[in-house]
């Protein structure tokens, strides 16, 4: 398990290669990269700054990953979330999940992203042509996370 909160960029290929390095028992690696977009809610976004709650962030991410391990049979999980100022096109978050079987890898990867969106203390502030604005939480993210408790 690897959980990082960092200002630096990450590399998907490097992270996934590290998970499978020297192993021959992994059948499936599902991964996700979230990227900063140049448009949000109809406005052009020149840059964004990610604020977080140091200490709680790591704790919240570890709790999410633990919950995924408790729910599915997983072989490895990597979560990296960036903080600080990012430009459109920059990767923000990476979640990669290794499992014997693809269904579990996909489910755990999406579960971690859905809960990260509603449980991990990060906040985005966008620089738009109309000035700076804090991104508002979306009801669709709450709904996505709620799906996992309805099973």
């Amino acid at each position, binding site marked *: 398990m690897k959980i990082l909160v960092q200002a630096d960029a990450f590399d998907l290929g490097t992270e996934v290669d590290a998970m499978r390095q020297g192993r021959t028992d992994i059948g499936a690696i599902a991964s996700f990269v979230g990227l900063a977009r140049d448009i949000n809610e109809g406005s052009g976004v020149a840059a964004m700054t990610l604020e977080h709650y140091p200490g709680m962030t790591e704790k919240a991410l570890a709790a999410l990953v633990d919950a995924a391990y408790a729910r599915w049979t997983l072989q490895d999980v990597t979560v990296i979330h960036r903080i600080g100022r990012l430009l459109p096109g920059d990767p923000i978050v990476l979640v990669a999940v290794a499992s014997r079987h693809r269904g579990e890898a996909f489910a755990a990867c999406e579960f971690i992203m859905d809960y990260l969106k509603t449980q991990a203390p990060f906040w985005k502030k966008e620089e738009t042509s109309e000035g700076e604005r804090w991104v*508002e939480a979306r009801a669709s993210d709450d709904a996505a996370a709620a799906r996992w408790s309805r099973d």
Partner: protein
Amino acid sequence: MKLRLLYFARLRERFGVAEEGIEFAGATAADLLAVLQARGGVWAEELAAGRAFRVAVDQDLVALDAVLHDGAEIAIFPPVTGG
């Protein structure tokens, strides 16, 4: 009891403070919010019932009936928007 209060993101900017120490005579997170609302102005506005914000005690999200303890770290912040 003594509490350490932290504010993040939009609430930090609106309140104009990131962190403060207070002496608190109540019991729950709801009691603490009442104390802060009583400051009036942006405090009353942002922490009004029905406004969307979250409370964490010692870095765990809690419901408003959570009982606080001396020395606790209480964070108040908007719904999160990372990822």
